[in-house]
C-alpha cells in the first residue's frame, strides 16, 4: 500500500470521526469537516459520469507587493487629477497609459504601458481586473470602523510575511499555513484518478496556497523533462544498472516507510516516499508532452507558464480532472525605483499571461482554465523618494475563457487622501480593501466544483461576507456575487 493511499484513508477516517462528533454539535470545525465528507463521497461518481470535466486554476503570486495602483489607473479627468496629486513623483503621465475599452457610468481606466497584452485581452473579454481587493476577516466599512476596535483586523497588517500568507490562506486572524488550494485538494482530490499525484502542482516550491490539511503540493521545475526528472543513479552502461537502481530505490523506499517515533523522521520519510512515487508518474507524463514551441518568451515566468500549459496538455497521464497550479514571480517590493522596475517587470508578466492564453487556445483548454494574480498588498500611494512602502487593498488580474472579461470587479476607490475619502487609512495613502479575497476565492471555488456546503471549509471566513442566515448552504441569497466567472 502506498503511503499516499494510507493518507487518504486516514483522512476519511478523520472526516468520518468528525462527522460523528458533529451530530448536534455546534463547533465550526466539526460541521465543516462533516460537510467535507459529504462532498468527498460525491466527487468520484461525478467525475465518472463526466469524464471530460476538466478545470484548472493558475495562481501567479507577485511576491513582494506589487504597486498595483500604477497597474490600473483611473483616467476620468477628476480621478486622474487625484491620482496625480497623491502619487506625486510616482504618478505615470496620462499619455503613457493605455486606455481600457471600458466605461462604468462615466468612470474610465487605463493600464500601465507594459500591460498591452492584458489590455487587449481585457478589451476582447478574456480578462478582467479586481479593484481594491485585499485580505479581511470581516467587512470593515471605513476608517472610523478600522480605528474603532470593534472590527477584527488581519494580523500583522502591512507586513510581508503575514499579508503574503493571508492572501494564500484567507485566514488573516491566525498564522495558519494551510491555504485555499490545499483545502480545495482536501475536498476534491478524489476527482483525480492517480492516487500519488497531487491536485496541487507548484513551479515555485513549497507555498501556503497549496498546503492542505491532508495533501502536499507536488513541486516541479520549468526545466523538468522526462530525461532529467528523477534521481541520479547507476549509469545505463553498467550491465546490471537496472537491478542496482531497483535495489537502491527499494532501500530508500524501505527506510522512508519504516516506523519512526520522532515526528521529524516520520515527516521526512513521508515526503521522501511521496516524492519517489510522484516523480515516476510525472516522468511518464512528460514523455508524452508535445512541446509548445514558438509561443513563450525566454523569461523564467514564461518558462513556468510553458511548463504549466504542457502539464495541462498531458493531464490524462496525470489522472487529473482538477488541477491547481502555483507560480511565484518575485521582486515586487519596490521601496526603491518603482517606476523603472515596473517598466521592466510588467512586460515580463504581460508576456507570460498573453503567451499562456495563446497556448491554452492552442491545446484546446482555453475554456477550462482561470489564471489570476495575487500579491502581498498594494503599496503606499505616496512616495518615499522614488519608491513606495507597504499598504493593503490592491488591484489584480483575472483571465481565461471562464472569466466574464472586460470588467472591473469590486469598487475602485477614490485616491484622494483628505477627509473626503473614508477608506484611506494613512497620510501615506493606504486603501482599506472594499472587496475581500474571500469573495473572489468563493467564486473560483464554486466554479471549480466545490459544493456550497463545503465553501466554509475552503474559505473559513466566507460567512462573514454572506448574510448569516443563508450561509453557507445558500450563498446566492443575501449575497451579491461579484459575477467574475460566467
Amino acid at each position, binding site marked *: 500500500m502506498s503511503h499516499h493511499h494510507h493518507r487518504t484513508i486516514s483522512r476519511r477516517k478523520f472526516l468520518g470521526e468528525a462527522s460523528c462528533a458533529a451530530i448536534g454539535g455546534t463547533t465550526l470545525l466539526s460541521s465543516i469537516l462533516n460537510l467535507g465528507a459529504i462532498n468527498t463521497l460525491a466527487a468520484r461518481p461525478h467525475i465518472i459520469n463526466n469524464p471530460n470535466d476538466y478545470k484548472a486554476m493558475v495562481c501567479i503570486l507577485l511576491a513582494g507587493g506589487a504597486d498595483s495602483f500604477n497597474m490600473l489607473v483611473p483616467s476620468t479627468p477628476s480621478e486622474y487629477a487625484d491620482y496625480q496629486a497623491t502619487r506625486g513623483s510616482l504618478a505615470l503621465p496620462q499619455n503613457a497609459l493605455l486606455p481600457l475599452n471600458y466605461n462604468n457610468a462615466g468612470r474610465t481606466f487605463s493600464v500601465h504601458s507594459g500591460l498591452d497584452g492584458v489590455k487587449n485581452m481585457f478589451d476582447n473579454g478574456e480578462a478582467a481586473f479586481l479593484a481594491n481587493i485585499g485580505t479581511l476577516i470581516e467587512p470593515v466599512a471605513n476608517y472610523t470602523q478600522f480605528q474603532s476596535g470593534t472590527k477584527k483586523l488581519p494580523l500583522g497588517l502591512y507586513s510581508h510575511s*503575514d499579508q503574503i500568507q493571508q492572501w494564500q490562506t484567507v485566514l488573516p486572524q491566525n498564522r495558519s499555513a494551510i491555504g485555499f488550494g490545499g483545502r480545495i485538494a482536501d475536498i476534491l482530490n478524489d476527482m483525480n484518478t492517480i492516487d500519488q499525484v497531487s491536485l496541487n502542482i507548484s513551479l515555485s516550491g513549497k507555498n501556503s496556497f497549496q498546503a492542505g490539511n491532508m495533501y502536499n503540493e507536488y513541486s516541479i521545475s520549468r526545466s523538468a523533462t522526462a530525461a532529467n526528472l528523477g534521481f541520479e543513479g547507476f549509469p545505463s552502461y553498467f550491465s546490471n544498472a537496472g537491478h542496482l537502481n531497483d535495489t*537502491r530505490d527499494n532501500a530508500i523506499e524501505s527506510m522512508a516507510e519504516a516506523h519512526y517515533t520522532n515526528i521529524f523522521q516520520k515527516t521526512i520519510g513521508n515526503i521522501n516516499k511521496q516524492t519517489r512515487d510522484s516523480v515516476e508518474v510525472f516522468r511518464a507524463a512528460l514523455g508524452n508532452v508535445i512541446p509548445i514551441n514558438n509561443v513563450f518568451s525566454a523569461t523564467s515566468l514564461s518558462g513556468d507558464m510553458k511548463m504549466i500549459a504542457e502539464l495541462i496538455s498531458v493531464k490524462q497521464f496525470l489522472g487529473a480532472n482538477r488541477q491547481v497550479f502555483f507560480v511565484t514571480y518575485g521582486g515586487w517590493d519596490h*521601496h526603491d525605483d518603482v517606476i523603472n522596475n515596473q517598466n521592466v517587470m510588467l512586460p515580463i508578466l504581460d508576456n507570460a499571461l498573453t503567451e499562456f492564453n495563446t497556448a491554452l487556445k492552442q491545446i484546446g483548454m482555453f475554456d477550462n482554465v482561470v489564471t489570476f494574480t495575487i500579491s502581498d498588498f498594494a503599496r503606499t500611494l505616496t512616495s518615499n523618494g522614488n519608491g513606495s512602502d507597504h499598504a493593503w487593498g490592491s488591484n489584480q488580474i483575472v483571465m481565461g475563457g471562464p472569466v466574464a472579461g472586460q470588467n472591473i470587479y469590486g469598487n475602485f476607490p477614490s485616491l484622494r487622501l483628505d477627509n473626503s475619502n473614508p477608506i484611506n487609512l494613512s497620510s501615506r495613502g493606504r486603501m482599506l480593501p472594499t472587496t475581500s479575497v474571500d469573495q473572489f476565492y468563493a467564486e473560483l471555488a464554486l466554479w471549480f466544483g466545490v459544493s456550497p456546503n463545503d465553501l466554509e471549509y475552503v474559505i473559513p471566513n466566507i460567512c462573514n461576507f454572506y448574510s448569516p442566515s443563508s450561509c453557507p448552504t445558500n450563498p446566492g441569497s443575501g449575497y451579491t456575487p461579484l459575477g467574475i466567472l460566467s
Partner: protein
Amino acid sequence: MQTKFTNMASLLLVFVFISQSLVAQDTIVIGFGDHYGVQVESSTSQAGQSPIKTLGSEGFLPNMNAASRFLAQATFGYDLDDINSVIALGQEGWINQQFAISMATSLTARVQTYHTNARTALGDPNTGTRSNWWDNAWWNYHMTSNDLLRQKVAMALSQLIVISELSGFGGNPYALSSYYDIMLQNAFTNYRTILQKVTYHPAMGEYLTFLNNPKTNLALNQFPDENYSREIMQLFTIGTNMLNMDGSVIMDGQNQPVPTYDNEDIFELSKVFTGLTWADRTSFGRTALTSTSYLQDMVMWETFHEPGIKILLNGDTIPNRNPINGNADITDALNSLFNHPNVPPFVSLFLIQRLVTDNPSPSYVQDVAQVFANNGAGVRGDMKAIIKAILLHPEATSCGSGDLPTFGGLREPFARYMQINKAFNASTMSGVFRNDMNNVYNFTGQRPLASPSVFNFFQRDYQPIGPIEEADKVAPVFQITNAQTVAGYLSGVWEWVLDNNPADEGQLYTGEVSTTYTNQISSFDFTAEKTLVDDDKLHILIDKYNLLLAQGNLTQPTIDIILAAVKQLPNTNDSERERRARFTAYLVMSSPEYLINR
C-alpha cells in the same frame, strides 16, 4: 536473544565476537550519548546480526557518539579528528579552544587577492570582478579554516539578519564577502555590535532600501522609506508579538497576541534611517561608484536626515537634534531596540533552532535568554556567553532529550553538503579550494547569502502538515523540502559522493584554463573505507558512517536495509570496492534517521 550470561556457550560466543571486533578495529557503536541506550546485556550470534558490545556507562564509543552529536550542533561539518578533539578537551574546553581561534584572513581579503591575481594574469589594471569570487572565497575559507564554531554561528547569523545575492549587488563579490565578514568576525562579539555593523553596511542599505533615504517632503507627498524600520524590528530584533523570556507569546485579555509595535511605530522609526549614503560619493547619489564602494560603511548626509523628535518603543525618545548628529539618532534607536525585552528570547530562540533543535522547551529558551540579557557580568548580548548557554544546556547535551519524539530538526540541505565535504575530508592537491557552488544551489536551493528574500530560506514558525503540525510543533527547514529539493538532494549526493565530484570548479578570470587549477579540484579519498566493504565487514563501515554522519542515530532496521542493499553491489575489483564504500554513504545520507539532527 539470549540475556545474561546464562551459559558457557553464549558467554564464549560473546567473547569471540568481542575479540574479533577488537582485532578488526571494530567501531561498533551503540547507544546515543554517554548513558542513554547503552546495552548492558550480552549480544547474539544470530546470522546477519551485528554483535553488540557490552559496555558500562563509561564506554569509549558512546562518548564518541556524544561528541559527534555535540559537533553536529556546534558545527556544520566535522571529521573524526574533531570528534577526538571534543573527547580530549571536553565540550566546554572545545568551545573555549574555538573561541581562541582568530580568523587567519577575511573573505574580503581573499576576494582582493583574486582581483589582484586576475589583474596580473590579464595585464589589465581595470579588470572587473567576477561573481564567483564570493563563492570561492567563502568555500576556500570554510574548507581550510578550523574555526568550525565560528563558521556555524556566522551561518546562523546570516540567516537571521539576511541579505541575499538575489538582489542588485548579487554579482559583486565585495558586497557579499564584506557583509559575511561581519558575521564571521562578530560571531563571538556582541549582538549589539552586529546590529551596528549591518545597519551601516551598504549592502544592507541597498537590500532594505534605506541607502539614499531622504527625509519627509510634504510638498512632494514624500515620506521616509519604511523598509528597514519594519524589518529590523520584525526580523532582526523583537518580532511582531510581545514575548515572555521563555519565548512564549504574551496574550491579551481576549487571548490575542500583544503586538510589539504598530504601523505608527514603523513610521516613526523610518525617520531615523534617513540620510545614509555611500562614503565615496560627492553627492547623495544612488549607485555604487565602484565594486569596492561596499567596503566602506555608509555615512550620514545631514541635509537628508529627518530633523525633530522621534518617538521610539517603550517610551524611548530621540531628542530634537541638529541633523548633523544623525548618527546619534541611529545609535539611540539601535540601543532602544537592543534593550527591548523581546530581544533575548527572540534572538535566542532563533539561534537554538539553528544550532540544536527546532522546538526548544520554554525553560531552555529562558535559560539562554537570561544569559543573553546578562552574561553574569552585566553584559547584554555577549555572543560567547549565549553560544555556551545554547550548546552546553542539558537539553542540548543530555542523552534523554534526543529520544523525545519532538526533539531535533531536519538538517539544512547546505549543511548536509558541508558535512559530506568535512566528514570525508574533501581535498585538493594544492590545499587550495575552489567551488562556484552552483551545483549545490541547483540541487538544493541553498547556498550562503542566497535566500529568496529577507525572510530567509525558511521561516522560524513553519509547520509542515502531518505529525509535526498535529504535535503543534514547528520545523523550519521543511519549508524548502519539496519534490524538487528531495530529488535534487539525492541526485546531489550521488554526484558528490558516487561520482566523486564534490565541488564545481570554474575559472576565476576570463581565459583562465582549467589545467592551471587542476591542483584545486576537490575529491574524496575512500581508501580506508574500501577496506571495510566485504560482506562480513560492511557493518563496521556503516558503524563508522553512523558515528561520523548520523551521530549514532541509525537503528538496526535501517542498518539492515543498507547492508542488504550494498551487498547487491559487486566487490570483485578495486573500483567496485570503492563504489560499495561510496554507495553505503549515499544510503546512510538518504535515511530519515540521518536526515534528522537530534
